[in-house]
């Protein structure tokens, strides 16, 4: 083929290609114009933020001492350190209990110092963003202010996200009793989730610990969940599997939970418990503070039956320490 013919053939191909692209684009445009707008499909994926187990490390760490921050740091270190859980450039959402318009001394929410220390640790691990979020029961702005958690989180550079109406997405939780339910968006978009519950009495379940704290990722009429509370807790634990649970037992609300209010109901335990097994952690704390065995908390056995952890904390590798 001589060069003139080759040039002519290439030009012809380009013309044909251009015409094809124009026709294709027009077809696509027309197809999109004629398509009926669709509702966004409900998210169905489970949110499994867990990391692989490491048999050489403890599965639970119980640390006592005189300083909140030191306890959090030591408990996480005992489990392998924050870099085991958070990778550089990840978006991390922390889920403290900020349910009630109460002061820290009243023991109904997570201690602000625990939240602040966990924010610091996430930055040290190289997190791109640290979000602190909860769907409060009382008015959220008041809860974040009076609990001290809003200020503690912001002072360490975390973003506090309050539950506005537009921040929920309808999600198929795929549970036995929990079907489609509005979920607070930060928990759907993060790379990792760290659960920071407070140790509290609860009038319905006996104790409100890590798994119960996950109610705070949901919007909608949550009171309906109380009708089958144990089944809904097992469903929720199955849907939202945090990377790590760090239970704040600096103060423990022993009675009149979950709202509390009386200083007499609060015991100073100065303890932080961290675990990669949310079921074992709840079982340990229920036993330690309320003398409740797992058979008194059916959601623990339900969650264990689903392979979400073990209610037999005695079988776990537990590290204990006291910081003078």
């Amino acid at each position, binding site marked *: 083929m001589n060069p003139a013919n080759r040039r002519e053939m290439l030009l012809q191909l380009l013309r044909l290609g251009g015409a094809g692209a124009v026709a294709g684009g027009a077809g696509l445009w027309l197809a999109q114009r004629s398509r009926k707008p669709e509702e966004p499909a409900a998210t169905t994926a489970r949110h499994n933020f867990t990391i692989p187990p490491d048999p050489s490390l403890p599965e639970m760490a119980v640390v006592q001492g005189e300083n909140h921050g030191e306890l959090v740091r030591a408990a996480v270190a005992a489990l392998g350190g924050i870099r085991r859980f958070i990778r550089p450039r990840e978006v991390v959402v922390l889920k403290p209990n900020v*349910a009630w*318009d*109460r*002061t820290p*001394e*009243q023991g109904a929410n997570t201690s602000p110092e625990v939240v602040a220390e966990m924010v610091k640790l996430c930055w040290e691990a190289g997190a791109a963003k640290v979000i602190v979020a909860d769907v409060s*029961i*009382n008015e959220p702005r008041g809860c974040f202010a*009076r609990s001290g958690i809003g200020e503690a989180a912001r002072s360490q550079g975390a973003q506090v996200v309050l539950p506005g109406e537009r921040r929920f997405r309808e999600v198929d939780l795929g549970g036995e009793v929990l079907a489609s339910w509005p979920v607070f968006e930060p928990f759907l978009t993060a790379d990792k989730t760290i659960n920071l519950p407070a140790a509290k009495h*609860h*009038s*319905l379940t006996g104790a*409100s610990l890590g798994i119960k704290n996950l109610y705070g990722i949901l919007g909608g*009429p*949550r*009171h309906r969940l*109380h009708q089958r509370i144990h089944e809904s807790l097992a469903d929720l634990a199955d849907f939202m599997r945090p990377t790590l649970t760090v239970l704040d037992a600096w103060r423990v609300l022993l*009675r*009149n*939970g*979950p*709202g509390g*209010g*009386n*200083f*007499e*109901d609060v015991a100073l335990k100065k303890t932080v418990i961290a675990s990669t097994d949310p079921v074992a952690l709840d079982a340990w704390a229920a036993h330690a503070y309320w003398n409740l065995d797992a058979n008194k908390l059916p959601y623990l056995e339900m969650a264990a039956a689903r392979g979400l952890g073990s209610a037999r904390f005695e079988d776990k590798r537990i590290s204990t320490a006291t910081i003078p």
Partner: protein
Amino acid sequence: MKYGAALAALAAALVAGCGGRRAADDFPRDDEVRGWKMERQPRVFQADNLWQYIDGDAERYLQAGFENVRNAVYQYRGRVEAAADIYTMKNPGAAAKVLDSEADVGSQPAALGDGGKVYRASIVFRKGRHFVRLIAYQDDPDGQKALMELAQAIAERLT
């Protein structure tokens, strides 16, 4: 216009919620009890939205026989903030049931209404079919005495 309608609806709800009596009628006004000022006007919660106020704890009241709760927030001399909840139950027995379910630990009997308990910074009592809870957020040396005066004023207003 929209704002006015919303206010009217709120006012109607407050009145309806208390069987013709305004929610604010049960709460002492500013300085009626020395040093106490109302910081937030009363809100009313009925059986169908009680969970929006005390989710997780609501069942205890509903099972005993609950009608409504009015909540107001007070401040004492700029030092102590306190929440006052007046639960109107279906009958005096229901109010007694709720009071009995309150922990005795750390409490002293309170000579208020038909009986009550006083803690370091909180008070619960019942009068007729009402159950009242006052919670101070700060543990102030004068707080308990001041809270008792506020509780007495509320007890006097309840019929």
